[in-house]
Protein backbone atom coordinates (compact mmCIF):
# COMPACT_ATOMS: atom_id res chain seq x y z
CA UNK A 1 0.00 0.00 0.00
CA UNK A 2 1.44 3.37 -0.98
CA UNK A 3 1.56 6.27 1.41
CA UNK A 4 -1.19 8.01 -0.51
CA UNK A 5 -3.58 5.08 -0.18
CA UNK A 6 -2.88 4.95 3.56
CA UNK A 7 -3.73 8.64 3.85
CA UNK A 8 -6.85 8.07 1.76
CA UNK A 9 -7.99 5.24 3.99
CA UNK A 10 -7.32 7.35 7.09
CA UNK A 11 -9.35 10.23 5.63
CA UNK A 12 -12.31 8.02 4.86
CA UNK A 13 -12.19 6.32 8.26
CA UNK A 14 -11.91 9.71 9.94
CA UNK A 15 -14.90 11.02 8.03
CA UNK A 16 -16.92 8.01 9.20
CA UNK A 17 -15.55 8.01 12.78
CA UNK A 18 -16.31 11.65 13.62
CA UNK A 19 -20.10 11.43 13.17
CA UNK A 20 -20.19 7.98 14.81
CA UNK A 21 -18.47 9.48 17.84
CA UNK A 22 -20.82 12.46 17.75
CA UNK A 23 -23.75 10.05 17.54
CA UNK A 24 -22.52 8.14 20.58
CA UNK A 25 -22.06 11.37 22.54
CA UNK A 26 -25.32 12.84 21.20
CA UNK A 27 -24.00 15.84 19.28
CA UNK A 28 -26.21 15.98 16.18
CA UNK A 29 -24.67 19.25 14.95
CA UNK A 30 -21.30 17.57 14.43
CA UNK A 31 -23.04 14.86 12.42
CA UNK A 32 -24.55 17.55 10.23
CA UNK A 33 -21.10 19.07 9.70
CA UNK A 34 -19.74 15.68 8.66
CA UNK A 35 -22.70 15.23 6.31
CA UNK A 36 -21.88 18.60 4.73
CA UNK A 37 -18.31 17.43 4.23
CA UNK A 38 -19.47 14.19 2.57
CA UNK A 39 -21.86 16.02 0.22
CA UNK A 40 -19.46 18.81 -0.72
CA UNK A 41 -16.69 16.23 -1.21
CA UNK A 42 -19.04 14.40 -3.56
CA UNK A 43 -19.53 17.61 -5.55
CA UNK A 44 -15.75 17.96 -5.60
CA UNK A 45 -15.26 14.38 -6.80
CA UNK A 46 -17.54 15.30 -9.69
CA UNK A 47 -15.55 18.39 -10.61
CA UNK A 48 -12.27 16.53 -10.12
CA UNK A 49 -13.13 14.16 -12.98
CA UNK A 50 -13.32 17.13 -15.35
CA UNK A 51 -10.55 19.17 -13.72
CA UNK A 52 -8.04 16.63 -12.44
CA UNK A 53 -8.41 13.93 -15.05
CA UNK A 54 -9.50 16.00 -18.05
CA UNK A 55 -7.75 19.29 -17.27
CA UNK A 56 -11.02 21.15 -17.80
CA UNK A 57 -11.11 24.19 -15.53
CA UNK A 58 -14.87 24.58 -15.22
CA UNK A 59 -16.03 27.60 -13.26
CA UNK A 60 -19.64 26.64 -13.90
CA UNK A 61 -20.13 23.48 -11.91
CA UNK A 62 -22.61 25.30 -9.67
CA UNK A 63 -24.98 24.88 -12.61
CA UNK A 64 -25.03 21.12 -12.05
CA UNK A 65 -25.04 21.48 -8.27
CA UNK A 66 -28.04 23.78 -8.58
CA UNK A 67 -29.85 21.59 -11.10
CA UNK A 68 -29.52 18.69 -8.66
CA UNK A 69 -30.81 20.94 -5.88
CA UNK A 70 -33.79 22.14 -7.88
CA UNK A 71 -34.56 18.61 -9.11
CA UNK A 72 -35.04 17.74 -5.45
CA UNK A 73 -36.81 21.02 -4.62
CA UNK A 74 -39.27 20.88 -7.50
CA UNK A 75 -40.20 17.21 -7.12
CA UNK A 76 -40.52 17.42 -3.33
CA UNK A 77 -42.46 20.70 -3.32
CA UNK A 78 -45.07 19.21 -5.64
CA UNK A 79 -45.29 16.15 -3.45
CA UNK A 80 -45.76 18.22 -0.29
CA UNK A 81 -48.45 20.39 -1.89
CA UNK A 82 -50.13 17.40 -3.60
CA UNK A 83 -50.10 19.17 -6.97
CA UNK A 84 -48.85 17.41 -10.07
CA UNK A 85 -45.79 18.77 -11.88
CA UNK A 86 -47.70 18.67 -15.15
CA UNK A 87 -50.88 17.06 -16.39
CA UNK A 88 -50.66 17.32 -20.18
CA UNK A 89 -49.57 15.60 -22.34
CA UNK A 90 -48.97 13.10 -19.56
CA UNK A 91 -49.15 13.24 -15.81
CA UNK A 92 -45.98 13.79 -13.77
CA UNK A 93 -46.40 13.91 -10.03
CA UNK A 94 -43.99 15.10 -7.39
CA UNK A 95 -42.17 12.59 -5.25
CA UNK A 96 -40.54 12.30 -1.86
CA UNK A 97 -38.50 9.26 -2.84
CA UNK A 98 -34.75 9.91 -2.70
CA UNK A 99 -33.78 7.31 -5.33
CA UNK A 100 -36.23 8.80 -7.85
CA UNK A 101 -35.00 12.31 -7.03
CA UNK A 102 -31.37 11.20 -7.42
CA UNK A 103 -31.99 9.65 -10.80
CA UNK A 104 -33.79 12.80 -11.92
CA UNK A 105 -30.94 14.98 -10.64
CA UNK A 106 -28.29 12.83 -12.33
CA UNK A 107 -30.12 12.69 -15.67
CA UNK A 108 -30.99 16.39 -15.67
CA UNK A 109 -27.47 17.53 -14.82
CA UNK A 110 -25.94 15.08 -17.30
CA UNK A 111 -28.14 16.53 -20.04
CA UNK A 112 -27.21 20.07 -19.03
CA UNK A 113 -23.52 19.08 -19.01
CA UNK A 114 -23.90 17.58 -22.49
CA UNK A 115 -25.38 20.82 -23.80
CA UNK A 116 -22.92 23.10 -22.00
CA UNK A 117 -20.04 20.79 -22.91
CA UNK A 118 -20.83 20.62 -26.62
CA UNK A 119 -20.72 24.40 -26.78
CA UNK A 120 -17.93 25.25 -24.36
CA UNK A 121 -15.47 22.44 -25.17
CA UNK A 122 -14.88 24.10 -28.53
CA UNK A 123 -12.85 26.63 -26.58
CA UNK A 124 -9.97 26.10 -24.21
CA UNK A 125 -7.95 27.87 -21.56
CA UNK A 126 -9.32 31.12 -20.23
CA UNK A 127 -12.20 31.12 -22.76
CA UNK A 128 -13.39 27.80 -21.39
CA UNK A 129 -13.34 29.21 -17.87
CA UNK A 130 -15.33 32.24 -18.99
CA UNK A 131 -17.93 30.33 -21.01
CA UNK A 132 -18.61 27.84 -18.21
CA UNK A 133 -18.88 30.76 -15.79
CA UNK A 134 -21.36 32.41 -18.15
CA UNK A 135 -23.51 29.27 -18.33
CA UNK A 136 -23.51 29.03 -14.55
CA UNK A 137 -24.67 32.64 -14.28
CA UNK A 138 -27.44 32.02 -16.80
CA UNK A 139 -28.86 29.31 -14.57
CA UNK A 140 -28.43 31.55 -11.53
CA UNK A 141 -30.43 34.41 -13.01
CA UNK A 142 -32.99 32.04 -14.44
CA UNK A 143 -33.59 30.58 -10.97
CA UNK A 144 -33.90 34.06 -9.46
CA UNK A 145 -36.51 35.10 -11.97
CA UNK A 146 -38.60 31.92 -11.88
CA UNK A 147 -41.40 32.74 -9.44
CA UNK A 148 -43.09 29.32 -9.67
CA UNK A 149 -40.33 27.83 -7.55
CA UNK A 150 -39.62 30.58 -5.07
CA UNK A 151 -37.55 32.91 -7.23
CA UNK A 152 -34.97 34.72 -5.16
CA UNK A 153 -36.34 33.33 -1.88
CA UNK A 154 -35.85 29.70 -2.81
CA UNK A 155 -37.96 26.73 -1.82
CA UNK A 156 -38.40 25.15 1.58
CA UNK A 157 -39.09 21.46 1.91
CA UNK A 158 -40.54 20.72 5.31
CA UNK A 159 -39.73 17.05 5.69
CA UNK A 160 -36.62 15.31 4.39
CA UNK A 161 -37.27 12.90 1.54
CA UNK A 162 -37.63 9.17 2.07
CA UNK A 163 -35.25 6.32 1.50
CA UNK A 164 -36.70 2.82 1.68
CA UNK A 165 -35.93 1.16 5.00
CA UNK A 166 -34.22 4.16 6.60
CA UNK A 167 -35.31 7.06 8.77
CA UNK A 168 -33.72 9.94 6.87
CA UNK A 169 -34.58 12.45 9.59
CA UNK A 170 -32.14 10.69 11.89
CA UNK A 171 -28.87 12.60 11.23
CA UNK A 172 -26.63 9.53 11.44
CA UNK A 173 -28.75 7.60 8.96
CA UNK A 174 -28.79 10.47 6.50
CA UNK A 175 -25.02 10.77 6.94
CA UNK A 176 -24.78 7.06 6.12
CA UNK A 177 -26.60 7.60 2.83
CA UNK A 178 -24.37 10.53 1.82
CA UNK A 179 -21.22 8.69 2.89
CA UNK A 180 -22.19 5.59 0.90
CA UNK A 181 -22.77 7.69 -2.23
CA UNK A 182 -19.41 9.44 -1.73
CA UNK A 183 -17.64 6.09 -1.46
CA UNK A 184 -19.44 4.89 -4.58
CA UNK A 185 -18.36 8.01 -6.49
CA UNK A 186 -14.76 7.61 -5.30
CA UNK A 187 -14.78 3.99 -6.44
CA UNK A 188 -16.17 5.04 -9.83
CA UNK A 189 -13.53 7.77 -10.11
CA UNK A 190 -10.72 5.31 -9.32
CA UNK A 191 -11.98 2.81 -11.88
CA UNK A 192 -12.44 5.54 -14.45
CA UNK A 193 -8.89 6.81 -13.97
CA UNK A 194 -7.44 3.37 -14.70
CA UNK A 195 -9.80 2.50 -17.53
CA UNK A 196 -8.99 2.82 -21.23
CA UNK A 197 -11.19 5.92 -21.23
CA UNK A 198 -9.21 7.42 -18.32
CA UNK A 199 -5.91 6.60 -20.00
CA UNK A 200 -6.96 8.39 -23.17
CA UNK A 201 -8.51 11.34 -21.31
CA UNK A 202 -5.39 11.75 -19.21
CA UNK A 203 -3.24 11.69 -22.34
CA UNK A 204 -5.53 14.23 -24.03
CA UNK A 205 -4.98 16.58 -21.10
CA UNK A 206 -1.22 16.33 -21.53
CA UNK A 207 -1.04 16.26 -25.30
CA UNK A 208 -4.18 16.43 -27.42
CA UNK A 209 -2.19 15.91 -30.62
CA UNK A 210 -0.94 12.56 -29.37
CA UNK A 211 -4.49 11.33 -28.83
CA UNK A 212 -5.58 12.49 -32.28
CA UNK A 213 -2.67 10.76 -34.01
CA UNK A 214 -3.75 7.42 -32.59
CA UNK A 215 -7.22 7.97 -34.05
CA UNK A 216 -9.14 9.15 -30.96
CA UNK A 217 -11.11 12.36 -30.54
CA UNK A 218 -10.01 14.59 -27.63
CA UNK A 219 -13.30 16.48 -27.93
CA UNK A 220 -15.43 13.37 -27.37
CA UNK A 221 -13.24 12.22 -24.50
CA UNK A 222 -13.58 15.59 -22.80
CA UNK A 223 -17.29 15.75 -23.45
CA UNK A 224 -17.82 12.33 -21.85
CA UNK A 225 -15.72 13.40 -18.85
CA UNK A 226 -17.69 16.64 -18.55
CA UNK A 227 -21.02 14.79 -18.59
CA UNK A 228 -19.95 12.25 -15.95
CA UNK A 229 -18.50 15.10 -13.91
CA UNK A 230 -21.69 17.17 -14.12
CA UNK A 231 -23.88 14.19 -13.23
CA UNK A 232 -21.95 13.47 -10.01
CA UNK A 233 -21.98 17.13 -8.98
CA UNK A 234 -25.72 17.16 -9.70
CA UNK A 235 -26.27 14.22 -7.38
CA UNK A 236 -24.37 16.12 -4.68
CA UNK A 237 -26.70 19.08 -5.28
CA UNK A 238 -29.78 16.92 -4.62
CA UNK A 239 -28.27 15.68 -1.34
CA UNK A 240 -27.22 19.19 -0.32
CA UNK A 241 -30.79 20.43 -0.79
CA UNK A 242 -32.05 17.48 1.22
CA UNK A 243 -29.58 18.20 4.01
CA UNK A 244 -30.74 21.80 4.30
CA UNK A 245 -34.33 21.00 3.35
CA UNK A 246 -34.03 24.18 1.35
CA UNK A 247 -32.93 25.12 -2.13
CA UNK A 248 -32.23 28.62 -3.41
CA UNK A 249 -30.49 30.32 -6.35
CA UNK A 250 -27.26 30.57 -4.29
CA UNK A 251 -26.65 26.94 -5.19
CA UNK A 252 -26.21 28.23 -8.77
CA UNK A 253 -23.94 31.15 -7.82
CA UNK A 254 -20.41 31.46 -9.16
CA UNK A 255 -19.18 31.57 -5.56
CA UNK A 256 -20.47 28.01 -5.27
CA UNK A 257 -18.50 26.99 -8.37
CA UNK A 258 -15.46 28.62 -6.84
CA UNK A 259 -15.98 26.86 -3.53
CA UNK A 260 -16.12 23.43 -5.18
CA UNK A 261 -12.89 24.27 -6.99
CA UNK A 262 -11.32 25.44 -3.71
CA UNK A 263 -11.97 21.98 -2.19
CA UNK A 264 -9.98 20.42 -5.00
CA UNK A 265 -7.12 22.91 -4.86
CA UNK A 266 -6.88 22.63 -1.07
CA UNK A 267 -6.93 18.84 -1.23
CA UNK A 268 -4.82 18.41 -4.36
CA UNK A 269 -5.77 18.65 -8.03
CA UNK A 270 -6.05 15.25 -9.70
CA UNK A 271 -5.70 13.39 -6.42
CA UNK A 272 -8.50 10.90 -5.95
CA UNK A 273 -9.16 11.93 -2.34
CA UNK A 274 -8.26 15.60 -2.88
CA UNK A 275 -11.90 16.76 -2.70
CA UNK A 276 -12.47 14.79 0.53
CA UNK A 277 -9.44 16.36 2.22
CA UNK A 278 -10.32 19.78 0.81
CA UNK A 279 -13.98 19.74 1.83
CA UNK A 280 -13.10 18.45 5.31
CA UNK A 281 -10.53 21.21 5.78
CA UNK A 282 -12.88 23.84 4.40
CA UNK A 283 -15.78 22.91 6.67
CA UNK A 284 -13.49 22.62 9.70
CA UNK A 285 -12.07 26.07 9.02
CA UNK A 286 -15.51 27.51 8.35
CA UNK A 287 -16.72 26.09 11.66
CA UNK A 288 -13.82 27.11 13.88
CA UNK A 289 -12.63 30.31 12.21
CA UNK A 290 -16.22 31.29 11.44
CA UNK A 291 -16.82 31.15 15.18
CA UNK A 292 -13.98 33.60 15.79
CA UNK A 293 -14.74 36.13 13.11
CA UNK A 294 -17.23 36.61 10.33
CA UNK A 295 -14.31 37.60 8.13
CA UNK A 296 -12.89 34.07 8.27
CA UNK A 297 -12.56 34.03 4.49
CA UNK A 298 -9.46 36.21 4.90
CA UNK A 299 -7.72 33.32 6.64
CA UNK A 300 -9.04 30.91 4.05
CA UNK A 301 -7.61 33.18 1.37
CA UNK A 302 -4.20 33.20 3.05
CA UNK A 303 -4.28 29.42 3.30
CA UNK A 304 -5.22 29.05 -0.37
CA UNK A 305 -2.38 31.36 -1.32
CA UNK A 306 0.00 29.23 0.71
CA UNK A 307 -1.22 26.02 -0.95
CA UNK A 308 -0.98 27.44 -4.47
CA UNK A 309 2.48 28.92 -3.85
CA UNK A 310 4.13 26.24 -1.76
CA UNK A 311 2.13 23.02 -1.93
CA UNK A 312 0.83 22.48 -5.45
CA UNK A 313 -0.30 18.97 -4.61
CA UNK A 314 -2.57 20.34 -1.86
CA UNK A 315 -2.96 18.62 1.49
CA UNK A 316 -2.68 15.15 -0.04
CA UNK A 317 0.44 16.17 -1.95
CA UNK A 318 1.97 17.59 1.20
CA UNK A 319 1.38 14.38 3.14
CA UNK A 320 1.88 11.78 0.42
CA UNK A 321 4.62 13.38 -1.63
CA UNK A 322 4.98 13.41 -5.39
CA UNK A 323 2.30 11.77 -7.46
CA UNK A 324 3.28 8.40 -8.85
CA UNK A 325 2.00 7.27 -12.20
CA UNK A 326 -0.48 4.48 -11.58
CA UNK A 327 -0.17 1.06 -13.07
Amino acid at each position, binding site marked *: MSRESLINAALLLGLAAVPLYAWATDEPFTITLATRVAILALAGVGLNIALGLGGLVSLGHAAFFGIGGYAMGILASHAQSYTPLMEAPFLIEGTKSMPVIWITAVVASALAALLIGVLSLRTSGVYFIMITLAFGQMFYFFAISWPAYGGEDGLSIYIRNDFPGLNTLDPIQFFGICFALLVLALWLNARLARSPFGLALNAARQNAQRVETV*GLSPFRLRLAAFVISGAITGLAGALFADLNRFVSPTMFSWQMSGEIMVFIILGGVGRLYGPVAGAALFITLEHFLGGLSEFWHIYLGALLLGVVLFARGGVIGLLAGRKVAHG
Partner: protein
Amino acid sequence: MADPVLATHGITKSFGAVQASRDISLSLQPGEIHAVIGPNGAGKSTLIAQICGGLAPDAGRVEFLGQDVTPLPTRKRAAMGLARTFQISALAMEDTVLQNVTLGALGARGGPLGLLRNALKDQDLHDKAMTALDRVGLAGQASTVTAELSHGQRRQLEVAVALTLSPRAFVMDEPMAGMGTEGSHRMTAFLGELRDEAPILLVEHDMDAVFALADRLSVLVYGEIIATGTVDEIRNNPQVRAAYLGETA
Protein backbone atom coordinates in the same frame (compact mmCIF):
# COMPACT_ATOMS: atom_id res chain seq x y z
CA MET B 1 4.31 1.29 -61.12
CA ALA B 2 1.89 0.09 -58.48
CA ASP B 3 -0.75 2.41 -57.08
CA PRO B 4 0.79 4.72 -54.50
CA VAL B 5 -0.19 4.17 -50.85
CA LEU B 6 -0.05 7.88 -50.15
CA ALA B 7 0.04 10.77 -52.59
CA THR B 8 -0.36 14.52 -52.74
CA HIS B 9 -1.69 16.16 -55.86
CA GLY B 10 -0.72 19.78 -56.31
CA ILE B 11 -1.15 20.90 -52.72
CA THR B 12 -0.67 24.58 -52.13
CA LYS B 13 -0.70 26.50 -48.88
CA SER B 14 -0.01 30.14 -48.12
CA PHE B 15 0.32 32.00 -44.85
CA GLY B 16 -0.27 35.61 -45.82
CA ALA B 17 2.37 36.45 -48.41
CA VAL B 18 4.47 33.38 -47.60
CA GLN B 19 3.88 30.41 -49.88
CA ALA B 20 4.74 27.46 -47.67
CA SER B 21 3.67 24.80 -50.19
CA ARG B 22 3.69 25.39 -53.94
CA ASP B 23 1.92 22.82 -56.06
CA ILE B 24 3.48 19.84 -54.28
CA SER B 25 2.87 16.45 -55.87
CA LEU B 26 4.63 13.43 -54.48
CA SER B 27 3.83 9.79 -53.94
CA LEU B 28 4.77 6.96 -51.62
CA GLN B 29 4.92 3.55 -53.28
CA PRO B 30 4.46 0.25 -51.44
CA GLY B 31 7.67 -0.96 -49.82
CA GLU B 32 9.67 2.21 -50.31
CA ILE B 33 11.22 4.85 -48.16
CA HIS B 34 10.68 8.23 -49.75
CA ALA B 35 12.74 10.91 -48.08
CA VAL B 36 11.90 14.60 -48.20
CA ILE B 37 14.88 16.83 -47.57
CA GLY B 38 15.25 20.54 -47.61
CA PRO B 39 16.84 23.43 -45.74
CA ASN B 40 15.20 24.89 -42.64
CA GLY B 41 12.07 26.83 -43.49
CA ALA B 42 11.54 24.93 -46.73
CA GLY B 43 8.01 24.00 -45.64
CA LYS B 44 8.57 20.41 -44.55
CA SER B 45 6.48 20.66 -41.39
CA THR B 46 3.69 22.43 -43.28
CA LEU B 47 3.71 19.62 -45.81
CA ILE B 48 3.47 16.96 -43.10
CA ALA B 49 0.64 18.78 -41.37
CA GLN B 50 -1.34 18.78 -44.62
CA ILE B 51 -0.65 15.10 -45.27
CA CYS B 52 -1.59 13.99 -41.76
CA GLY B 53 -4.44 16.45 -41.17
CA GLY B 54 -4.54 19.44 -38.90
CA LEU B 55 -3.82 21.87 -41.71
CA ALA B 56 -6.05 22.13 -44.77
CA PRO B 57 -4.39 22.91 -48.09
CA ASP B 58 -5.62 25.97 -50.02
CA ALA B 59 -5.69 23.84 -53.15
CA GLY B 60 -4.88 20.29 -54.17
CA ARG B 61 -5.69 17.03 -52.46
CA VAL B 62 -4.19 14.24 -50.37
CA GLU B 63 -4.90 10.62 -51.26
CA PHE B 64 -4.39 7.72 -48.90
CA LEU B 65 -5.13 4.10 -49.86
CA GLY B 66 -6.77 5.38 -53.03
CA GLN B 67 -9.19 7.58 -51.11
CA ASP B 68 -9.32 11.36 -51.06
CA VAL B 69 -8.64 12.16 -47.40
CA THR B 70 -8.28 15.94 -47.77
CA PRO B 71 -11.49 16.71 -45.84
CA LEU B 72 -10.82 14.14 -43.09
CA PRO B 73 -9.53 15.18 -39.65
CA THR B 74 -6.26 13.82 -38.24
CA ARG B 75 -7.91 11.11 -36.18
CA LYS B 76 -9.81 9.63 -39.16
CA ARG B 77 -6.60 9.45 -41.20
CA ALA B 78 -4.86 7.86 -38.23
CA ALA B 79 -7.67 5.33 -37.91
CA MET B 80 -7.16 4.43 -41.59
CA GLY B 81 -3.56 3.54 -40.76
CA LEU B 82 -1.58 6.71 -41.34
CA ALA B 83 0.96 6.65 -38.52
CA ARG B 84 2.86 9.82 -37.76
CA THR B 85 5.83 10.53 -35.54
CA PHE B 86 6.63 14.05 -34.46
CA GLN B 87 9.75 16.16 -34.70
CA ILE B 88 9.20 17.42 -31.18
CA SER B 89 8.01 14.39 -29.26
CA ALA B 90 4.26 14.49 -28.71
CA LEU B 91 3.88 12.11 -25.81
CA ALA B 92 1.99 12.09 -22.53
CA MET B 93 5.02 13.05 -20.46
CA GLU B 94 3.54 12.33 -17.02
CA ASP B 95 2.50 8.84 -18.07
CA THR B 96 4.67 5.76 -18.16
CA VAL B 97 6.18 4.43 -21.37
CA LEU B 98 3.75 1.52 -21.25
CA GLN B 99 0.76 3.85 -20.87
CA ASN B 100 1.82 5.79 -23.95
CA VAL B 101 2.09 2.68 -26.10
CA THR B 102 -1.12 1.25 -24.68
CA LEU B 103 -2.86 4.43 -25.84
CA GLY B 104 -1.75 3.61 -29.38
CA ALA B 105 -3.03 0.05 -29.12
CA LEU B 106 -6.29 1.42 -27.76
CA GLY B 107 -6.71 3.83 -30.66
CA ALA B 108 -5.91 1.08 -33.15
CA ARG B 109 -8.54 -1.23 -31.69
CA GLY B 110 -11.27 1.34 -32.29
CA GLY B 111 -14.80 0.99 -30.94
CA PRO B 112 -15.95 2.32 -27.57
CA LEU B 113 -13.38 2.72 -24.81
CA GLY B 114 -14.12 0.87 -21.59
CA LEU B 115 -15.05 2.95 -18.55
CA LEU B 116 -14.53 0.47 -15.75
CA ARG B 117 -11.99 -2.10 -16.95
CA ASN B 118 -8.33 -1.66 -16.07
CA ALA B 119 -6.55 -0.63 -19.27
CA LEU B 120 -3.18 -1.95 -18.21
CA LYS B 121 -4.60 -5.36 -17.29
CA ASP B 122 -6.15 -5.85 -20.73
CA GLN B 123 -4.05 -8.73 -22.08
CA ASP B 124 -4.64 -7.92 -25.73
CA LEU B 125 -3.61 -4.27 -25.31
CA HIS B 126 -0.70 -5.25 -23.14
CA ASP B 127 0.66 -7.76 -25.66
CA LYS B 128 0.40 -5.28 -28.53
CA ALA B 129 2.06 -2.58 -26.46
CA MET B 130 4.91 -4.78 -25.27
CA THR B 131 5.54 -6.15 -28.77
CA ALA B 132 5.92 -2.60 -30.07
CA LEU B 133 8.21 -1.60 -27.19
CA ASP B 134 10.27 -4.71 -27.71
CA ARG B 135 10.75 -3.94 -31.38
CA VAL B 136 12.19 -0.49 -30.71
CA GLY B 137 14.24 -1.77 -27.78
CA LEU B 138 12.34 -0.03 -24.99
CA ALA B 139 10.77 -3.08 -23.32
CA GLY B 140 13.05 -2.62 -20.30
CA GLN B 141 11.74 0.92 -19.80
CA ALA B 142 8.03 0.05 -19.78
CA SER B 143 7.35 1.41 -16.30
CA THR B 144 9.57 4.50 -16.61
CA VAL B 145 7.80 7.85 -16.61
CA THR B 146 8.15 9.27 -20.12
CA ALA B 147 9.54 12.61 -18.96
CA GLU B 148 12.55 10.74 -17.58
CA LEU B 149 13.49 9.22 -20.95
CA SER B 150 16.44 10.57 -22.89
CA HIS B 151 15.73 12.48 -26.07
CA GLY B 152 16.66 9.52 -28.22
CA GLN B 153 14.48 7.15 -26.23
CA ARG B 154 11.52 9.45 -26.72
CA ARG B 155 12.03 9.16 -30.48
CA GLN B 156 12.02 5.39 -30.12
CA LEU B 157 8.83 5.61 -28.09
CA GLU B 158 7.21 7.75 -30.81
CA VAL B 159 7.99 5.00 -33.31
CA ALA B 160 6.67 2.35 -30.91
CA VAL B 161 3.34 4.18 -30.59
CA ALA B 162 3.17 4.41 -34.39
CA LEU B 163 3.83 0.66 -34.64
CA THR B 164 0.82 -0.18 -32.47
CA LEU B 165 -1.49 1.41 -35.04
CA SER B 166 -0.96 -1.46 -37.54
CA PRO B 167 -0.04 1.28 -40.00
CA ARG B 168 -0.44 1.21 -43.76
CA ALA B 169 2.04 4.08 -44.10
CA PHE B 170 4.41 5.96 -41.82
CA VAL B 171 5.05 9.68 -41.91
CA MET B 172 8.12 10.39 -39.82
CA ASP B 173 9.29 13.88 -38.98
CA GLU B 174 13.03 13.75 -38.20
CA PRO B 175 13.09 10.48 -36.25
CA MET B 176 16.89 10.77 -35.82
CA ALA B 177 16.86 14.30 -34.41
CA GLY B 178 18.75 14.56 -31.15
CA MET B 179 20.02 10.98 -31.28
CA GLY B 180 23.63 10.05 -30.74
CA THR B 181 25.61 8.36 -33.51
CA GLU B 182 24.94 4.90 -32.17
CA GLY B 183 21.24 5.48 -31.66
CA SER B 184 21.02 6.98 -35.10
CA HIS B 185 22.64 3.91 -36.63
CA ARG B 186 20.30 1.58 -34.81
CA MET B 187 17.26 3.59 -35.87
CA THR B 188 18.53 3.59 -39.47
CA ALA B 189 18.80 -0.19 -39.45
CA PHE B 190 15.38 -0.49 -37.85
CA LEU B 191 13.65 1.80 -40.38
CA GLY B 192 15.33 -0.16 -43.16
CA GLU B 193 13.48 -3.28 -42.04
CA LEU B 194 10.28 -1.40 -41.37
CA ARG B 195 9.76 -0.47 -45.01
CA ASP B 196 8.59 -4.00 -45.79
CA GLU B 197 5.82 -3.59 -43.26
CA ALA B 198 4.61 -0.21 -44.50
CA PRO B 199 6.23 2.44 -46.68
CA ILE B 200 7.78 5.44 -44.96
CA LEU B 201 7.64 9.09 -45.91
CA LEU B 202 10.73 10.29 -44.12
CA VAL B 203 11.57 13.89 -43.38
CA GLU B 204 15.09 13.91 -42.06
CA HIS B 205 18.12 16.14 -41.63
CA ASP B 206 20.61 13.33 -41.05
CA MET B 207 22.02 12.93 -44.56
CA ASP B 208 23.89 9.71 -43.77
CA ALA B 209 20.62 8.14 -42.75
CA VAL B 210 18.74 9.53 -45.75
CA PHE B 211 21.35 8.31 -48.26
CA ALA B 212 21.48 4.91 -46.56
CA LEU B 213 17.72 4.43 -46.44
CA ALA B 214 15.90 6.31 -49.16
CA ASP B 215 14.69 4.57 -52.28
CA ARG B 216 13.67 7.95 -53.61
CA LEU B 217 14.36 11.50 -52.53
CA SER B 218 12.42 14.72 -53.00
CA VAL B 219 14.11 18.04 -52.43
CA LEU B 220 11.93 20.79 -51.05
CA VAL B 221 13.14 24.39 -51.33
CA TYR B 222 10.97 27.42 -50.57
CA GLY B 223 7.82 25.29 -50.56
CA GLU B 224 8.55 23.77 -53.95
CA ILE B 225 9.82 20.34 -54.94
CA ILE B 226 12.78 21.08 -57.18
CA ALA B 227 13.72 17.46 -57.86
CA THR B 228 12.62 13.90 -57.18
CA GLY B 229 14.75 10.84 -57.92
CA THR B 230 17.01 8.13 -56.63
CA VAL B 231 19.88 8.94 -54.31
CA ASP B 232 22.35 8.99 -57.19
CA GLU B 233 20.15 11.16 -59.37
CA ILE B 234 19.72 13.68 -56.58
CA ARG B 235 23.39 13.67 -55.66
CA ASN B 236 24.28 14.53 -59.25
CA ASN B 237 21.53 17.06 -59.84
CA PRO B 238 23.24 20.43 -60.29
CA GLN B 239 20.16 22.38 -59.23
CA VAL B 240 20.00 20.47 -55.95
CA ARG B 241 23.70 20.86 -55.36
CA ALA B 242 23.37 24.60 -55.74
CA ALA B 243 20.24 24.98 -53.71
CA TYR B 244 20.84 22.61 -50.90
CA LEU B 245 23.58 20.04 -50.76
CA GLY B 246 26.23 22.61 -51.55
CA GLU B 247 25.20 24.59 -48.54
CA THR B 248 25.29 21.77 -46.04
CA ALA B 249 27.86 19.34 -47.37
